[in-house]
């Protein structure tokens, strides 16, 4: 995939309660969840972001609760992908299982300012920050996870098998 969008920067340990607070988990409707995406990290986020934008997180993005509502809310809000220094384990699984593209890059987070535009190319494994003429490498995705993406998520992967 190739994603081009403006970056919204968040810090370390962004937990799934911040991504989608439990008070909204009385539904699993993606569009309703999207309305509250990142609300407890930045209450105005959903009004500022545009379809195709990219979230950049620090260490341990998506820690805490296993709620798959978190990647669902991010995807339904129109975020094209999440790039973080590192991801919490369950969020990482959930994103691949349900089809939210996520990438690890330690360098990008330090180099980029909020609002700058980047191009993410998962095929070449690079992120380009055009304004500064810089390119960063994405950590390679394990082959099994690549297969999950190619099949369109875990359930389709199982069906194919």
């Amino acid at each position, binding site marked *: 995939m190739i994603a081009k969008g403006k970056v919204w920067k968040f810090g370390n340990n962004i937990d799934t309660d911040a991504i989608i607070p439990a008070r909204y*988990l009385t539904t699993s409707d993606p569009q309703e969840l999207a309305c509250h995406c990142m609300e407890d990290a930045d209450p105005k986020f959903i009004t500022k972001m545009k379809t195709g934008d990219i979230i950049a997180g620090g260490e341990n993005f998506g820690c805490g609760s296993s709620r798959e509502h978190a990647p669902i809310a991010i995807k339904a809000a129109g975020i094209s992908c999440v790039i973080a220094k590192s991801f919490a384990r369950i969020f990482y699984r959930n994103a691949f299982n349900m089809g939210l593209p996520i990438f690890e890059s330690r360098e990008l987070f330090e180099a980029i300012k909020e609002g700058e535009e980047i191009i993410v190319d998962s095929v070449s494994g690079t992120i380009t920050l055009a304004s500064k003429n810089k390119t960063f490498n994405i950590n390679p995705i394990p082959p099994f996870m690549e297969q999950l993406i190619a099949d369109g998520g875990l359930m389709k992967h199982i069906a194919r098998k």
Partner: protein
Amino acid sequence: MGNTITEKILMAHTDLKKITAGQLINAKVDIALGNDITAPIAIKEFKKAQGKKVFDKDKIALILDHFTPNKDISSAQQCKFIRKFASEQQITHFYEGGQVGVEHALLPELGIVLPGDLVIGADSHTCTYGALGAFATGVGSTDLAAAMLTGELWFKVPQSMKFVINGKMPKWVSGKDLILNIIGRIGVDGALYQAMEFTGETISKLPMAGRLSMANMAIEAGAKNGIFAPDAITTQYVENRAKRPYKFYCSDADAVYSDTIEIDASKLEPQVAFPHLPSNVKGVSKAGNVKIDQSLIGSCTNGRIEDLRIAAQILKNHKAASHVRLIVVPATPFIYKQALQEGLLEIFLNAGAVISPPSCGACLGGHLGILAEGERAIATTNRNFVGRMGHPKSEVYLASPAVAAASAVLGRIASPAEL
């Protein structure tokens, strides 16, 4: 080269003869768990994949414990949706109403999860069952859907970190204080993707309730699972609960660990995790004057009878401070009844407590004890993230039942030794 207990349990659930950390495997699942928040998505995915019948109706647990007793119409709808599925599929372990308890207290209590099991749950605190010597880990709803359909799931075999805990724990120090101290040392991603294996002479004497509290919070250090080698304490806990065979595994002497951390439990005092991370830990004597509005005693971390007994011991002949709302949540109906029979509920009522039905509600800011803007709670729960128990500008401090009870009486974060 030997194997850890985590590797051995994972291997026993595959056809493989050898297993190493980092390896990707497909393993058979003994119990797959979902609750009223996570199961609806799993059921939808199950149906979308043309699932007709679950792989084994006896190996799935559906527990309606989060927004129950139903807090509003939409949570009632979610429960209704799961109830219909459970009925269609004749799910054996379906619990709601007067039978339901907080899932991670209920499943061990009923002997549904046992030593040597491989348990997955669409709830991050599924790691609690590691206390029994099981491999148990939290996953998402799609993972639960896949497990309900096929009885298997993919796993990356984790590396293991060993925690060797020795020394006699001082008065009022509990399993909760040990795990808070560990998370404070290694951080909220200190065990990311790894197994946390707890050993040492302190652990070999630690009662099951303390082990369950510790394994419960392994996820707060980023771990895949927390685990204890089963022993006589495990046997005592499971022998009258188990309705099927179980197996004890233990790590080989030459098993490989990514790190070994030694802790002297005799030097610890009760611990408190300050907002807004479970790793923001201090000894209670260094808490300073932190006035509280609410004290919550309960949850999958600390809602067991042993926890309630400690709280009652401190609250007996005391009253919660007039500005503190004290909420006690027995984690299961059985614990509730035990607390009634032992006279603990009367002590709580005399202390001015509200006794809640078993529910996860207050812990995750769902219902039954929400915080307003600017309010502070001390809680025996496991998370103190921004907005965890209510308003994004409220605060949660994590501690043991002893500290939560003493704090309720003194109206500020306090050690039971002050009473």
